[in-house]
């Protein structure tokens, strides 16, 4: 029941985004090409060859229905056309960039989940003490700072002022490493600041969620009962508080992960990191519509898959839902 309802929602979302992607460029005054040319600021210069490419891409000579059919066909075959700026199939461009993003987003996610959950749990344990209050206020403050601002602060401090880390990029250009070990060091060196920035940006929200949930669980009668049973603090925290508090957290963390892929656009721009976030910014500024289209579809599908995964994980962790399902079947 629950699951099918969610699936319907996801289908709606997919449909909505794909439709938006199809309709928006065609709805612009005068169509995508005139819109770009006639734009009062004219941010982009378009050559005749590009115009041809665009007309080709949008199939503007054909009827609306034919355009739609081509569009849908393209989506299912992962054929998003040629990128205007890279003169390469969109699919390949994205695949070249994706590993970089996955690297920093992945590491940052693991770090922020671990730090956020542990800090949140301990903070809840010390709830209503001055110690917890201080943590809480600083985390609230950190969670509100836009991540590009954190990134800039780091760049200012660690790269400009002290020169500890590189200003940007994923690897030193024109550098031939002696074996994979040097390469690894070089890459991790470049990844430190982006990863730290992303971690800082995401830890706070997980911490706040975890703290609230853990405080709620700590007030449950069964915690008092476990204490009365003489169960030690460590066991209470791990077996009773963490297990109960983490259920709602998992869903939220997984869903947030989807947002992170798109959210990396800011951090990657700050550090000129060659991931798909940076690619997204380039594509938007250069009005590289095929590339944009590909990125949007990719990111939406990614978000939806994560949501579905969260829906699947949840019942595995909560015995109450499991048995309810069996009873219903």
């Amino acid at each position, binding site marked *: 029941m629950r699951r099918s309802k969610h699936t319907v929602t996801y289908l709606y979302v997919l449909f909505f985004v794909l439709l938006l992607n199809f309709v928006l460029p065609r709805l612009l005054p005068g169509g995508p090409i005139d819109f770009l040319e006639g734009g009062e600021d004219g941010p982009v210069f378009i050559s005749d060859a590009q115009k041809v490419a665009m007309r080709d891409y949008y199939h503007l000579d054909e009827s609306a229905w034919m355009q739609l059919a081509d569009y849908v066909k393209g989506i299912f075959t992962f054929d998003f056309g040629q990128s205007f700026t890279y003169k390469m199939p969109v699919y390949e461009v994205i695949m070249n960039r994706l590993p970089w993003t996955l690297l920093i987003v992945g590491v940052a996610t693991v770090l922020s989940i671990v730090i956020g959950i542990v800090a949140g749990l301990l903070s809840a344990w010390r709830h209503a003490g001055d110690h917890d209050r201080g943590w809480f206020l600083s985390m609230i403050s950190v969670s509100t700072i836009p991540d590009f601002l954190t990134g800039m602060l780091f760049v200012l401090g660690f790269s400009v002022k002290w020169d500890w880390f590189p200003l940007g990029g994923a690897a030193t250009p024109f550098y031939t490493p002696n074996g994979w070990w040097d390469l690894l060091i070089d890459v991790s060196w470049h990844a430190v600041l982006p990863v730290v920035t992303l971690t800082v940006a995401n830890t706070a929200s997980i911490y706040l969620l975890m703290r609230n949930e853990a405080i709620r669980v700590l007030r449950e009668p069964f915690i008092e009962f476990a204490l009365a049973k*003489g169960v030690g603090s460590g066991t209470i925290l791990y077996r009773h508080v963490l297990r109960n508090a983490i259920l709602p957290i998992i869903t939220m963390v997984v869903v947030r992960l989807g947002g992170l892929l798109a959210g990396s656009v800011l951090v990657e*721009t700050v550090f000129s990191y060659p991931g798909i976030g940076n690619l997204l910014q380039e594509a938007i500024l250069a009005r590289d519509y095929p590339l944009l289209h590909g990125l949007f579809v990719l990111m939406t599908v990614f978000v939806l898959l994560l949501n579905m995964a969260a829906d699947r994980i949840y019942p595995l962790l909560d015995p109450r839902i499991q048995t309810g399902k069996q009873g219903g079947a």
Partner: protein
Amino acid sequence: MNRSKKAGSVIVACFVGLALAGPLLAGVEPFAFDGERLLTPSSVNWLGTNALGQDVFSQLSYGARTTLLIGLGVAVLSTTLSGVLGLMAGYFKRLDPLINGLANVLLVLPSLLLVLIVAAFTSGGVWQLIVTLGLLTWPGYMRLIRASVLSLREREFVKASQLFHGKPSYILRKHLMPFIVPLLRTKFILSFRQAVTMEASLSFLGLGDPNQPTWGKMLEQAFHQTETWMTTAWQWTIVPPMLALLLVTIGLALLSEGEHQQGNRLLRSYSPSSRVKLLLASSEIAASVPCAHSSVKAAEQTQRTEHCTATHAGSDNAVVVHDLSVVHNGRTILQPMSFSIAAGSVTAIIGESGSGKTTLARAVYGLLPDDVMSGAVYIRSGGTNGSSETSGTSDTSNICATNGSSAERGINRWVDAAFIVQDPRLSFNPLLTIGQQFMEAMQGTDASSITVSEKRLAAKQALREVQLSDRLLDSYPHELSGGMLGRALLALALINKPSLLIADEPTGALDPIVKWEILNLLVTKVREHGMTLLLITHDHQAALRVADDMMIIKDGQLLEHAPAEQWLHHPATSYSRELQALMPSIRRRHISEEFKKVGFQHREGCRNLKKEQRNVGRTT
């Protein structure tokens, strides 16, 4: 208003002041290329000029205006949408699927991605941004408001209003609105902050409104100038807008944080309180603490002592409480009281809700933090190992069996005493099986050599003792009925054979028939194992039927402590008389007849118990 909220308001007020007055003071248009490039701050250009020769202070103050406009616009639009749609979705069942479905769709999408889509295809104007953000960010709080309305709709004052023919608009406005105003206030500040952040981020990506000066754009321009990093220019081109953004977002966060209510401190200590200790050997207690019940009135003192010696063996106390009082936040929850409870007796603590009886129970069990509680509590040691291993050291009783020589020691929870509370359905952790929760309780025993299978065996045995199938060990609490959980809880309480069981309204949440079943089982098992029971209840009629002694508590004061029969026939306070007047006269007669019977049984039971103890002594 707390400190963080005050700090937040000051910051936000400064920002609004800058937005309103700044442009008048600046005197230079933000986009005018009047000055030299990258001038250091001076009396003419307060914050210097940027790489294009534009005045930084002018840009900063005009940027504050843009930020304020976007923040206000988005906050008003988004808050109104969440409020109106939330109220409608919660109250009108027909609109709910539509609104909630739409919200679900929007919630799945990360809003940044959608804003980017729209910004990519439009020119990124301020108004487009306001509308896009306003339309995208309502679902989160709409759902909170909807959930709140859904539960409020079931409140009886709403039903009553419906019965008086209050129209939906009237009910929503008058009855429900006051409840969601705090949510809307938080939402407003949150939206404001999100809008500020989002606008700055978009501008930083180069997607902002090209005709408006904004902080994000100042940052973007400075950030992409190599000169910024080569010289000290970053000190006035990057730091001011960066600080402004930081301060505004943090200020707004502090402002909304003040809305969250700081929860009251839970009166709970995670480790056993140091004021609760084990009773020393029986001879020592007799010397240090008066044996009998608390002295309420000296005249009755002698009678009570008689009763005490008649029923139980002299100074055999299971609990001795010495000048116990509880004060929290300047409020006295328990007035100082001293009393002792005879081993093997059932004592009922009677009081209304809020009279302090639960606090007393938690204090005796050592669940209160040390700083709110004063006085001392002594509890007789218990546990299965205690009596059999060391009965050689003390010949007649098992008091202080394992540590006869050692000085005051804290109690071992669940071994020396056990504590069960109101609702058995809420006492079990929903994510652990019954068996796992039994195992946990058995970890407290001294003998760590017990293997898992032995523990399982003991748990099965305990379940059978309360007439439950031992297969329940692998079930989760939600699969059991309230009555079954009540029995399981009882089995759990008996598992280590503690000397004292404290039961706080153990049947309060159960149906009348189940309630009697559980209460009878509880008393039977306690008598069977020669344990002492402290039964906290508001039901004095039930208490009269099972208890040997009664303690009456009102407003944190111990009014009376007397044997049940004596309390029934010679109540010492007017409150007790008032309580008794509530019982039908037939009942009263009935109960006192019962007492003769039960009292006899009990004395008999005590005698048997003592005999057993003597036997144990002899065999070793």
